């Protein structure tokens, strides 16, 4: 135990850095240390690296390079999008529309804005986590200044009807932000055509095999948004601070690789995912959380009755399996996952949730191993549980 080979099934938390990406970054951690704002040659090399990466991101997103702003990651991008838009437009109104299943990087800025006199509508989602675009339309008021809906949920993997929601937002001339952190390399994006109604989009490098600590915010030309970091002239003065050159360059390489062959990649992921899902659902008193079809290709989220998620996670960790849970104890709070509660999973059931997210670190062997280990571990914890009655056995 403990020295078994590692099965990494937490790709929604982070991904390993692609070795090709690391290779791209290394010269900029060693030789090319210049500040991109400096005029001499090693500075110019850094500037070139940053602009090359900007072009790669723009290409991958179907955007213009000048619409890409580098940040420190998904959290900063979401904070900038929500607070930057709200404050820039507050003279027009102080109403924001979002959902209760957003990442905390959107929800907590919204809570902060509530302390600053903003009014936030959290639209309910259905039992699969889907938001109805008609609900968005009905919630729009004269003073609505921002709509923010995530592209796909990080816990349950449900993919939202972003095109339809964007259309509603555009018709009402309200800026539309989407947190696309989970979808890069999984859903093809084209911000000039198919996604022309998305005004602001957040992404994070370490979710698509790039380095941590770097991300980007796409801001459509003409979108009203405040500057986020005040200081130097970097990023057009909107986000001051010396660029994370190696990180930005690595992200550029990573997005190029991740978006090169999305369909084939998804097909491979779905094949493994569906086999794992079918096998796990054979465990009695187990349910799938999130939409059965409209979900990210690598995402699985289950609830196991009668057991608690942190225990489950730690026992799996002892067997070399890395995954995550929405249980309260794992987060140090007294409530289980806000996402599972929002889709109506009873608190006790939410406590026993397990998220397995597949990616490039996985092979078919990993699926076999998890299907061998998981039923045993669930059985072991149920044998200890006071809620698991013998009468339930064998059902």
């Amino acid at each position, binding site marked *: *135990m403990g020295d078994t080979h590692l099965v990494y099934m937490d790709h929604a938390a982070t991904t390993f850095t692609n070795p090709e990406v690391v290779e791209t970054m290394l010269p900029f951690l060693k030789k090319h240390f210049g500040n991109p704002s400096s005029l001499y040659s090693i500075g110019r090399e850094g500037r070139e690296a940053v602009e090359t990466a900007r072009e790669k991101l723009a290409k991958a997103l179907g955007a213009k390079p000048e619409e890409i702003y580098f940040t420190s990651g998904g959290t900063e991008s979401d904070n900038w999008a929500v607070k930057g838009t709200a404050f820039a437009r507050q003279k027009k109104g102080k109403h924001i529309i979002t959902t209760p299943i957003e990442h905390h990087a959107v929800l907590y800025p919204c809570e902060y804005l509530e302390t600053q006199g903003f009014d936030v509508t959290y639209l309910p989602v259905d039992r699969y986590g889907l938001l109805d675009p008609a609900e968005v339309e009905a919630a729009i008021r004269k003073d609505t200044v921002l709509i923010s809906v995530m592209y796909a949920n990080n816990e349950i993997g449900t993919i939202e009807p972003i095109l339809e929601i964007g259309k509603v937002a555009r018709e009402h001339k309200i800026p539309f932000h989407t947190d696309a952190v989970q979808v890069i390399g999984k859903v093809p994006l084209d911000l000039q055509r198919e996604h022309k109604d998305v005004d602001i989009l957040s992404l994070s490098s370490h979710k698509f095999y790039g380095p941590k600590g770097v991300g980007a915010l796409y801001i459509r030309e003409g979108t009203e948004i405040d500057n986020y970091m005040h200081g130097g002239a970097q990023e057009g003065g909107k986000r001051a601070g010396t660029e994370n050159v190696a990180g930005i360059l690595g992200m550029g390489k990573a997005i190029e690789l991740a978006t090169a062959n999305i369909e084939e990649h998804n097909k491979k992921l779905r094949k493994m995912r569906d086999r794992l899902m079918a096998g796990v659902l054979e465990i009695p008193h187990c349910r799938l959380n999130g939409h059965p079809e409209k979900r990210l290709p690598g995402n699985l989220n289950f609830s196991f009755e*009668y*057991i*608690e998620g*942190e*225990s489950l996670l*730690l*026992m799996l960790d*002892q067997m070399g399996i890395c995954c995550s849970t929405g*249980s*309260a*104890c*794992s987060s*140090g709070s*007294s409530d*289980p996952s806000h996402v599972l509660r929002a889709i109506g999973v009873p*608190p*006790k059931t939410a*406590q026993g949730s397990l998220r397995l997210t597949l990616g490039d670190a996985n092979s078919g062997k990993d699926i076999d191993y998890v299907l061998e280990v998981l039923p045993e571990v669930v059985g072991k914890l149920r*044998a*200890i*549980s*006071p*809620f698991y009655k013998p009468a339930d056995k064998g059902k």
Partner: protein
Amino acid sequence: MYNKKVMDHFMNPRNVGEIENADGVGEAGNPHGDQMKIFLKIRDNRIEDVKFKTFGCAAAIASSSMATELIKGKTLEEAWELTNEEVAEALEGLPPGKLECSVVSREATHRAINEYRKKQGLEPLAEQA
């Protein structure tokens, strides 16, 4: 996050199970959702055998296991006095914020002892504030 001793009691909990026709049974939960059920076999005012079942995190399961180890063979008065801190100490420490998860074992033990006392026609012992 958890030390070796806690992990040992979590992965290999002692005294798991139920006792048929137990002399005292107690159950307790906490706001995190942890729940423990304890079964006592009592002879001559002494805990001759103890079994438990717990729903909860690793801290809750490990402290249930340790608490049952500590009260086994003790008099009811001695078992009553066992504190969460003593259980945590025997486990060589719990991570910050996890002591609360160990509270269930003390409460469940108290309820089991009082259930037994009631059956014996004795006054239930009072919880110290």
